């Protein structure tokens, strides 16, 4: 009996002994998809004599909810990863401290969605439909040129999308259709997609690796809702070196939804000065040039040059769909509920 007591005590002691020591520690809360080069982070740590700890806290929504719940005793100094679909929730909850970074002058105004500079843009990307080039070539089928085309009989059973209730690219694509068809028209469009055999799955991993025919999973559908950068990732992570991507994105007007990701200093941080430095660092050229190949997003800082793979294989949409964060925040739950009723029930 005493043995397990002793063990419990040991565990408690071990718990206590593992406390990180040293005065300068900075905690950065991120979503699970965050990544960076070791060298870049080390450079920041050395320049500022600080140890950066990353707290990965689930997908973008989960990480934000945790930050909101822990508002009174913040888990971290900086939160990265809130995107424009969640921005209003974050700002309304008051989790950020404003910081007008001097680097913002370089960054185009279209990305600066919060005029009070509580949330600062770091990167952006387009959620687009990827298609299987070989399939369309083999079947001499023209690539769809608009959202309307997807409801045509020649594309029956060819598209897989993610459930907007459980997936952020799924939500982004739903928002693109809301932008294009309007609040009154998007459900009619989705009913026609449903009649045309659109497949719906829970998340990106399933859609891409299980359903999409051009991925290694070798699935049944040659079109998938993914990212404009995915064709570049197919080349970078190819099994055998490729000179051409097996996939490409449909970039026609309003078919893509633009996602912008933000960073902000968490309200109540005890490391305000260091947190400011880290935000500057994320907006700076070194991090911005490293980020594309790590997270497959595009830098907001125009001074950062793009890697070759992005230039060649990952062009962005010229006219992406956008909606204001306030409009999204006010309606997202209703849109998702109505979509569920129209497409799944």
């Amino acid at each position: 009996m005493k043995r397990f007591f002793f063990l419990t005590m040991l565990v408690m002691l071990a718990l206590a002994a593992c406390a990180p020591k040293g005065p300068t520690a900075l905690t950065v809360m991120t979503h699970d998809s965050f990544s960076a080069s070791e060298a870049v982070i080390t450079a920041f740590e050395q320049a500022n004599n600080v140890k950066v700890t990353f707290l990965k806290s689930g997908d973008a929504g989960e990480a934000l909810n945790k930050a909101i719940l822990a508002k009174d005793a913040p888990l971290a100094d900086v939160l990265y990863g809130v995107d424009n679909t969640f921005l209003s929730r974050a700002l309304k909850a008051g989790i950020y401290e404003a910081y007008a970074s001097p680097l913002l002058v370089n960054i185009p105004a279209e990305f600066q969605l919060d005029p009070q500079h509580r949330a600062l843009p770091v990167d952006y990307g387009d959620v687009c439909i990827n298609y299987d080039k070989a399939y369309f070539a083999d079947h001499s089928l023209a690539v769809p040129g608009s959202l309307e085309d997807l409801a045509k009989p020649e594309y029956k059973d060819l598209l897989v999308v993610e459930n907007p209730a459980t997936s952020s690219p799924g939500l982004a694509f739903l928002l693109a259709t809301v932008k294009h068809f309007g609040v009154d028209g998007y459900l009619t469009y989705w009913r026609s997609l449903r009649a045309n055999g659109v497949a719906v799955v829970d998340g990106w991993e399933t859609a891409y690796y299980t359903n999409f025919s051009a991925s290694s999973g070798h699935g049944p559908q040659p079109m998938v809702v993914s990212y404009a950068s995915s064709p570049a990732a197919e080349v970078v992570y190819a099994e055998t070196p490729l000179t051409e991507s097996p996939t490409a994105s449909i970039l026609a007007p309003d078919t893509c939804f633009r996602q912008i990701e933000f960073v902000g200093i968490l309200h109540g941080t005890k490391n305000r000065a260091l947190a400011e430095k880290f935000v500057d660092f994320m907006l700076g050229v070194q991090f911005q040039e490293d980020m594309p190949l790590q997270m497959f997003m595009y830098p907001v800082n125009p001074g950062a040059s793009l890697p070759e793979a992005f230039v060649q294989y990952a062009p962005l949409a010229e006219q992406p769909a956008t909606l204001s964060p306030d409009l999204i925040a006010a309606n997202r739950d209703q849109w998702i509920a109505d979509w569920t009723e129209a497409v799944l029930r």
Partner: protein
Amino acid sequence: MSISIYHKGTKAQREKISVFVSLWLRAFFPWLGVSLFLGLFFFYPLARILWLGLTPVSLLTITPESFLLTSHSLLFTFYQSFLSTLLTLLIGLPAAYLFARFDFRGKALLRLLTAIPFMLPTVVVAAGFNALLGPRGWINLGLMRLFGLDSPPIVFVYTLWAILLAHVFYNTTIVIRVVGNALAHLDPRLEQAARSLGADARRAFWRVTLPLLRPPILAAALLVFLFDFTSFGVILLLGGPHFATLEVEIYIQAVQIFNLPLAAVLSLIQLLCTLAFSMLYSRIVTRLAVTTAPRPAEANLHRAKTGREKLFVGGMAVLLLALFLLPMVSLPFRSVARLETARGERTAVSYGLTADYYAELFVNRLGSLFYVSPFEALTNSLLYAAATVVLSLALGFPVASALAHPRRLERFLDPFLMLPLGASAVTLGLGFIITFNKPLLTGHWSPITSPLLVPVAHTIIALPFVIRSLQPALASIPDRLRQAAASLGASPSKVWFTVDWPIVARATLAAAIFAFTVSLGEFGATSLVYRPEYPTLPIAIYRFLSQPGGLNYGQAMAMATILMGVTGAGILLIERFRLPGAGEF
């Protein structure tokens, strides 16, 4: 108050009170560790988050539509878990009989095969089922080519059948372990007595063996049911978005919509259902419990002799192989095979052999900060698993001993032990955040950033399994054996080592295997509390699958193969491991 009683009372009264208090303390003593542990790491965080969601004002925000949604998903949750449990028992009980009664070649491997799915991440299992039964799986492609069909004849993925089959695939091992263990150690003389009194084999089985097996069957059924009841990944990945269980609804409400009141109500309903089932189980089981002298497993084992027995062994072996090998075999295959043809081709697919995926696991191609080598992921996983085994056995043993001879306290507390299986991982994760975000013990440190929270989370989930594996073995020891040993002059510790230990040693191994596999395969809770510096194998698999590219997919399959291999080896090792004095039990 107590002091005034103490002063005014007579000496006899005082003694009565102190005897009562000390008796109660002694009765509670085995529960101390588990109570502290679950109290701090489970009930307290859960209560905090439910309390936050369930304020009178917030409850007013719940609309009639959400009630409709709730009842809809609750009904489906019951429906699918009831069917899944039934099917799992249908396969699991004959399988348990096979392993407990028959000796045949390849038995250890077949048994191992049934245990491996338990720790495979859902994403990997879904990939396996898709490779076999998906619209472009082997079976559909084969049938299409054979009969010249244009579309896949078998629609499996995103149907109720996919959910049921995946649940059977995951949970049959629970039935095999819990029921099989009891069956193996059943006193064969009882059945022999029935036979000698004129009952034929079938009658002896139905009238003697099966009634004796009711408690372990119920225990296994309860564990399987609760696992199916809170199923999440299988529903999303194989059932698709048309099916929503309570757990899926909780996730959507808590994470995507951030409707904490509704999430809290749903979590509470799920917890209360879990509690109700566990209480029902406890009541039935105490009425059914019979102690018989357990026998060494070898006493019950024999080779198949009659034609009917041979047919049973052969048929079961084929069935289990088909069920467990076919969905899994595509993973190691895809970890060494690369697609050769143009990917757009609809039917013809050819593969080339490659070791690239394994080699690439050791390369940090883009110099990422979060790169983890397979050795590190493996080491992390094994360390967490070892800590989970030690912690859950240390906490579970005293409780299982107490439960073996249940008194009022035990009967009351027993159902609460099952609650961790009924708690939604998302809700608990949010509870952790609001409970442990403030520094504890020392000034700087808050538990939420500690890697030690991972084995703690695993132990919470492993405990019900550990306790349910130990309890029947401990309960099966008749007191007269202990009394006989004591009357022959053995000291209490000697009694324990010569009577109790040989019988429970085997169950301890079974419990250790449960804790080990739960820890190795656990993803849900891990993803809530893990530190990115110390990722586990399942976390590494998910990381690869979160970016496009053939190399990422291949590496995920390679990692999954490593995970399967390691768990298999681990289980074999633990099974071979002869605890000192364990004898043949």
